[in-house]
C-alpha cells in the first residue's frame, strides 16, 4: 500500500469510528462534490482518467468500504457512459445519492417493525447509526423498551449515549467484560455492520464475535441491520490479512513498555445471526446468501476493479 493510500485508509477508519460507516460515506460524497468543483482539468478524457484513478484509489484502501466502492463504481460507469458526462452531471448524481441516502433507512424501518420490541430490553454493542435510527424509529412509534449499551471504545460508547439520550430512549451502560451478569435481563441484541463479504461474513466492530458468542450461548436472538448498498462485491482476502495496528505503550507509573495490538474489525459468519434486517426484507442466514449472490452477479458486470 502506498503511503497516500495508507493515509486515506487511516482517515476513513478514524471517521468510521467517530461517526459510523453510513455518515463516513456521506462525508466522503460531500467532500467529493467539493473536490470535483475545485478540480481544474480540460476535457472529458482527462476528467475520466482522474475519476478512474480516484475509484482505483478508493478500491485500494484497507479495510475496503463496500458502500464507497459500490457508489464509486456507479459514478465511474456514469462518467464512462458518455463523453457528454461532465462534472455537473456527476455532481448532480452525487447530490441524488446523498438525497437517497438520507431516506434509505425508511425501507429498513418498514421491516424492523416486524420485530416485537414492546416491553423488551435490547442490548447494543457497536456505534451503528442504522441501529440508532431503528431504535429512534421505535421510540417515535410509541414503543416502550429499554437499551443496554456495551461500554467499549470511548468514542463509540459516547456516540451511542448521545444518540439515545437525544432521542429520550431509556438506557444503561455496562462494561464489556461484565455482560455475563445481565444475560437474564436481555431479550435481544442489535448489531450494525460495515459490509457483507463474498465469504458470507459480516465485517463488524471489533469485539462483536465475543459478544455474539456469549449471547448465543444463552439463546438470545441477535438481529443485524444492514442496507444492501453496503455489500462487498470483490474477492475477499484471507482473514489473516485483516487490518491491525501494533504500538508501544508505557506503564502509567512504572518504567515498563509493552506492545499493544488493536484490530480494526471482526469478521462474523452470517450464520451467527438469528435474522438480518435489510432494506429489501428480513432474512435468515440462508436467504441472505441468495440475496447477496443475485446482486453480486449483476454488480460485478459493472465493476472494473472488483477482481
Amino acid at each position, binding site marked *: 500500500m502506498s503511503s497516500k493510500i495508507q493515509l486515506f485508509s487511516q482517515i476513513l477508519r478514524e471517521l468510521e469510528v*467517530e461517526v459510523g460507516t453510513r455518515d463516513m460515506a456521506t462525508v466522503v460524497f460531500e467532500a467529493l462534490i467539493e473536490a470535483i468543483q475545485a478540480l481544474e482539468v480540460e476535457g472529458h478524457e482527462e476528467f475520466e482518467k482522474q475519476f478512474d484513478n480516484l475509484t482505483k484509489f478508493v478500491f485500494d484502501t484497507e479495510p475496503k468500504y463496500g458502500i464507497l466502492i459500490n457508489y464509486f463504481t456507479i459514478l465511474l460507469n456514469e462518467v464512462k457512459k458518455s463523453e457528454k458526462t461532465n462534472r455537473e452531471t456527476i455532481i448532480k448524481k452525487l447530490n441524488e445519492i446523498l438525497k437517497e441516502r438520507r431516506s434509505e433507512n425508511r425501507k429498513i424501518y418498514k421491516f424492523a417493525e416486524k420485530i416485537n420490541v414492546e416491553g423488551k430490553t435490547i442490548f447494543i454493542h457497536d456505534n451503528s447509526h442504522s441501529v440508532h435510527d431503528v431504535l429512534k424509529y421505535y421510540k417515535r412509534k410509541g414503543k416502550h423498551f429499554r437499551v443496554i449499551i456495551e461500554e467499549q471504545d470511548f468514542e463509540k460508547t459516547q456516540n451511542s449515549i448521545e444518540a439515545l439520550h437525544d432521542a429520550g430512549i431509556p438506557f444503561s451502560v455496562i462494561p464489556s467484560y461484565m455482560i455475563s451478569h445481565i444475560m437474564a435481563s436481555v431479550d435481544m441484541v442489535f448489531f450494525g455492520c460495515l459490509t457483507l463479504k463474498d465469504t458470507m461474513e459480516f465485517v463488524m466492530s471489533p469485539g462483536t464475535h465475543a459478544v455474539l458468542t456469549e449471547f448465543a450461548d444463552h439463546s438470545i436472538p441477535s438481529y443485524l441491520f444492514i442496507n444492501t448498498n453496503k455489500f462487498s462485491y470483490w474477492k475477499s482476502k484471507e482473514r489473516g490479512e485483516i487490518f491491525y495496528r501494533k504500538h508501544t505503550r508505557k506503564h502509567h507509573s512504572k518504567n515498563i513498555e509493552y506492545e499493544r495490538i488493536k484490530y480494526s474489525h471482526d469478521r462474523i459468519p452470517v450464520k451467527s445471526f438469528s435474522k438480518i434486517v435489510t432494506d429489501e426484507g428480513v432474512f435468515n442466514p440462508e436467504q441472505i446468501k441468495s440475496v447477496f449472490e443475485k446482486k453480486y452477479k449483476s454488480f460485478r458486470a459493472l465493476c472494473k476493479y472488483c477482481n
Partner: protein
Amino acid sequence: MTTIALGIFLFAFLLIVFEVFDKSLIAMFGALMMVVVGILHPEEAIEAIDFETILLLLAMMLLVGIAAKSGIFEWLNVKIASFTKGNPLFLFVLFSLVTAVFSAFLDNVTTVILIVPLTIELMRGMGRDPKPYIFAEIIFSNIGGALTLIGDPPNIIIAGATGFNFLEFILNLWIPILLSSILIMGIFVVLYWKKIKPISKNLIDLCMANVLLKKIKHTFLKKTLHKDFVAKVVLLLLLTILGFLLQGFIGLPNYIIAFLAAIALAILTSKRINIHETFQSVEWTTLFFFAGLFIMVGGVEKTGILEELSLYVAGTTTNLFYLSLIVLWVSGLVSMVLDNIPFVTVMIPVIFGLETQLIGSDTTILWWALSLGACLGGNGTLVGASANVVSVGLAKKNGVRISFLEYMRVGFPLTMIMLTLCSVYLFFRLH
C-alpha cells in the same frame, strides 16, 4: 558591590540561557541575592518591580484563558481551514496570516498552541510535509506579536517603561511589520513552492484534502459551542482592543483596561467557567520570572554600570540613525540566542541613558528599534523566542522532528532580511 551585582546577574543569566532550573526560580533567586548581599534594600527591590507590566500580563493571561475556554479560537481556525477547501497554498497563506493576526492580540505561545496541532493534523493527513507550515507559523507569530503593545512581552516591557500607548505601537511599527510580512511570505512561497503548490489538477489529492477537512471539522467542533459564552468573549475582546486604541481618550492605563475586561468577562461567564481553574491557568512562573528579573536589573542599575554602558554607546556616535541601527542589530542578534525578555529589561535603562545624552533630539525611534530587534530577532534560532520552543515541542509531540540547524537554515537568513528591512525603515524615518 558593582562586581557582586554584575556577578549575580551574569550567573543568573547563564543559568537561564542553559535552562539549568526553571527560569522563574533562577530570576527569583537572583533577585533575593541582590537583597541578601545588600545591593538593594527590600523596599528598593519592591520598587524595582514594574507592576504595570506584570499586571497587564496577568490580565491578558486571564482574558485569553477565559476566551480560549469558549472554543472560539478552535472554531475560527477550523472554519478558516474549511474555507481553503484543502488548497495547500491558500492554507499556507491563510494560516500564516491568521497566526500573525492572532499573535498581535493574543500572546504568541497561545497562538501557536491553537494553530500548530491543527496544521500538523491537516498536513500529515493530506500526505504533506508540515514543516514549511510550522516554520511560517513560528515566524509569523513573532512578526505579528511585534505589531502591538500586547503582542509580545518585550513590547509590554517597553510600554511599561515609556508609557507609549497601544495606538503608538501600531502607528510606529505597522510599516516594517507589513513590509516584512509581504517579503517573508513571498520568500516562503518561492522557497517551498513544490511543497505548497495548489492541488487543483489532482482529484485524488483534492478528495483526500476535503475528506480530511470535514473530519477535522467534525473532531474539533464536536465540543458544543455555547452561543452566549462566545458572544460575551467576542464582545469583551473587541471592547478590550477598542479600549487600548482609545486609551489616550479614556485616560486609564493599559493594565486597568485589560483587568476591567478580564474581570468583566469572568463575571459574565461565571456559570460557564471555574474561576479557580482559570486562575490556575495563569502562567505564574512567567510573572515571577518578570518580577525577579526587574529586581535583578534594578540591582545592576543601582551600581551605575548601565549608565556607563549608555555613555559608552552614546560616545561612539551622536548620529541617531547609527544609534538606532546599533540598538536594532544588537537587540536582534542577541535575541536570536538569548531570551529577549531579560535583554529588553536590561536595555530599558540603557536607552533611557542614551536619551539623556541626546537631549533635544526625538529619540523615540530608539524604542521602536529595540522593539523590532527584540521581537523579530527571536526568529533567528529555535531558542530565540518562547513561541519557537513551544511550536517545536508541539511538533515533536505530534511526530514531526525539527532540529536546531534545520530551523536555523530558514530562520536565520529570514531574520537577517527582516532586520535589513527594518534598517531601511529606520533610515527613512530619520531622513
